[in-house]
């Protein structure tokens, strides 16, 4: 289908043709023609945010919870520069997003015009790809390519920068079917020989472990289903990165909990002592590996990833399989069954015996006594109270994020939205808005910290305007808790600027926005307050006053290996002060 229309009409038409129903944005001079078209139709619902950064995070939350491409629309200059953080965030966490930015008219580009910024230059390193559209006749093709690139291979964010005169100009529109990409064709099917070799290696394993990541979630529900089948048929233990939570049910016996810096004792020790590691859609990030030269020293490693550059990047592996996780797992499972392979039961039994001993250390244990709410307890109660509901969790970044990952059990994929790679404070509230837009009747909770929530607090106004009943469950300890924890570890307990002296009254703040404020200060208040939060059908700020000085354990201190964890029971003031040696202090 080709027909004549203006560039602004093409934007709306291309979004509709790509199956987009919702977009997040903020108007401005250089996108007014597009907003004028949005005004004159009712197929696309536009969500008006209060800050462009939030449009990006909302699109991320929308994408992560649905598996679809998230869409954001912002103006030139400051609109585009405010998108840099969410674009980088989406790039790090492989979230598919199309961001459309307005640009000054083509004849003004380079003249330092009002609200001009070199958007494609600024966003080049923080997108998978970007385009500046100089001819309206290229616009439709580029928009369809943008969606293709964002969702194909390892997903990621793209930017289409459209000058205002191109939005006004008339040209030929073509539909998505006519577009075939010239260069970008990522490999999705794994190499047969490598798959067979991997299956042989798995069959001989005596101390195996599955280590899975966000790639499983990105690959889609089929990948999750196949992973679960494979794990159950082998009887192997499984752990996951922060980004991969929910691909395997947390209630299952084979689940060891999250691994890495704040992972469980059993997951990290199993990673360290395993003889065969099956890495599935995970990228050996530094939060996961700890000290590289002591990372799982005795194991053979199999790595399945759709991005060839992930293989052998940080850790050398024995078998690298480039392909879509779902496709490769399907073929591995077929080969496993066809070869009538079975795990080495006796060895596996011994291995599970070791794992159970590590599990017996109960590394997530904490002491809840008296009326002061421990943050871990607050998350556990939130989890218990929301069990069986259609619940989606987003987080900000810091201690609360790690506690959420540790104490909230995820049974299904796409239910957990967090800023993993970039660690963006202020992600959670706008991401929750995106999730709620996609799942109107679900319970969407942003587990937040008192510092992070303030970074995009203004989005409560968006929630009110668009009737998005998100809940911000704030673990309020009046500190930037993770910053303080690192100051205790690294800087002699000198708490430089990690205490917030003038926090707002979150209950009054909620009311000022037209939302509901709830406060829990004592253990005896907590359950009732959570019930109230769940039953309220409006946006809620929940001010959960928790123990101010609680820290996040277990922990692999910087520069240490998986088997050198610091457990909460051992974390005396002295142990904390000396946990990280001189070399480790330079690490992040």
């Amino acid at each position: 289908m080709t027909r004549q229309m203006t560039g602004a009409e093409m934007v709306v038409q291309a979004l509709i043709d790509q199956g987009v129903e919702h977009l997040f944005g903020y108007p401005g001079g250089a996108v007014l023609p597009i907003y004028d078209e949005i005004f004159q139709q009712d197929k696309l619902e536009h969500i008006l945010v209060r800050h462009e950064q939030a449009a990006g995070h909302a699109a991320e939350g929308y994408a992560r919870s649905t598996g679809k491409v998230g869409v954001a629309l912002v103006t030139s200059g400051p609109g585009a520069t405010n998108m840099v953080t969410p674009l980088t965030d989406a790039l790090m966490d492989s979230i598919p997003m199309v961001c459309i930015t307005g640009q000054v008219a083509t004849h003004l580009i380079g003249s330092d015009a009002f609200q001009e910024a070199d958007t494609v230059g600024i966003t080049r390193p923080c997108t998978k790809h970007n385009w500046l559209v100089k001819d309206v006749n290229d616009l439709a093709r580029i928009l369809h390519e943008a969606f293709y690139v964002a969702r194909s291979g390892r997903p990621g964010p793209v930017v289409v920068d459209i000058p205002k005169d191109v939005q006004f100009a008339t040209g030929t529109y073509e539909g998505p079917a006519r577009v075939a990409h010239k260069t970008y064709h990522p490999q999705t099917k794994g190499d047969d020989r490598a798959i067979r070799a991997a299956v042989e290696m798995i069959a001989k394993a005596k101390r195996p472990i599955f280590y899975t990541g966000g790639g499983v979630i990105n690959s889609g529900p089929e990948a999750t289903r196949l992973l679960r089948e494979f794990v159950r048929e082998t009887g192997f233990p499984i752990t996951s990165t922060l980004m991969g939570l929910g691909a395997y049910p947390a209630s299952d016996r084979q689940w060891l909990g999250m691994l890495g810096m704040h992972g469980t004792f059993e997951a990290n020790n199993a990673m360290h002592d395993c003889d065969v590691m099956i890495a599935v859609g995970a990228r050996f990030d530094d939060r996961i590996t700890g000290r590289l030269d002591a990372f799982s020293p005795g194991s053979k490693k199999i790595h399945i990833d759709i991005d060839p550059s992930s293989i052998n990047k940080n850790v050398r592996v024995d078998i690298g399989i480039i392909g879509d996780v779902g496709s490769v797992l399907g073929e591995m499972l077929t080969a496993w069954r066809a070869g009538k392979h079975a795990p080495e039961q006796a060895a596996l039994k011994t291995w599970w015996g070791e794992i159970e001993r590590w599990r017996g250390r109960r590394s997530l244990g904490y002491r809840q006594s008296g009326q002061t709410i421990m943050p871990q307890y607050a998350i556990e109660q939130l989890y218990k109270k929301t069990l069986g509901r259609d619940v989606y969790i987003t987080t900000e970044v810091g201690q609360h994020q790690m506690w959420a990952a540790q104490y909230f059990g995820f049974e299904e994929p796409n239910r957990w939205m967090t800023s993993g790679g970039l660690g963006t404070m202020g992600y959670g509230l706008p991401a929750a808005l995106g999730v709620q837009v996609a799942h109107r009747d679900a319970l969407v909770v942003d587990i937040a910290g008192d510092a992070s929530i303030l970074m995009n607090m203004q989005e409560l106004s968006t929630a009110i305007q668009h009737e998005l009943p998100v809940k911000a469950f704030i673990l309020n300890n009046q500190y930037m808790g993770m910053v303080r924890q690192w100051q205790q570890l690294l800087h002699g307990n000198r708490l430089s600027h990690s205490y917030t002296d003038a926090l707002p009254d979150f209950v009054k703040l909620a009311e000022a926005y037209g939302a509901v404020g709830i406060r829990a200060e004592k253990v005896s208040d907590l359950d009732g307050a959570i019930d109230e939060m769940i039953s309220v059908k409006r946006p809620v700020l929940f001010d959960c006053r928790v123990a101010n000085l609680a820290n996040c354990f277990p922990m692999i201190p910087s520069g240490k290996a998986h088997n050198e964890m610091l457990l909460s029971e051992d974390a005396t003031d002295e142990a904390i002060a000396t946990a990280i040696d001189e070399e480790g202090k330079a690490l992040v």
Partner: protein
Amino acid sequence: MQPGSVYAIKEGKDAVEQHTLSILVDNEPGVLARVIGLFSGRGYNIESLTVSETEHQKHRSRITIVTTGSAQVIDQIKAQLGRLVPVHRVIDLTVDGKAIERELMLIKVRGSGDHRSEALRLAEAFRARVIDATTESFVFELTGKTDKLDQFIVLMQPLGLVEVSRTGIAAIARGPEAT
């Protein structure tokens, strides 16, 4: 080890290799910036860089980059280049057999008397061409391998070297096949 990883193993363990990469790209705006940005952003080295459109009808360019790093870093560079959207193909000419590498240099030398005639004699020995001359200067054009060009510069220094412009290395695989 990888630059950028906070847990990098100490450097200097692996031998540093030099590789010549041939990168076929769509000649679209910004493609060179993407390639260069990848090198600077991830801390890789560029020893030499050449770029020009090579297939006008198809809007394709060939970028030739000479880079150095451990074997693992070189593999990572190729994988990172390969996933750039406008990149058709990355060919490691160093691995794929002996490639031919040439560089072109323009070099200006100023002098008189013995220096002037010595410069001209050496230019002949190196098969450099005189492409501009005044009564007190020459501009020579010289093509060859990098070390030959380097050597010519060394020889011209005492004879009145003024300035040099070099293209960087262009390379192509031997034999009848396209790479």
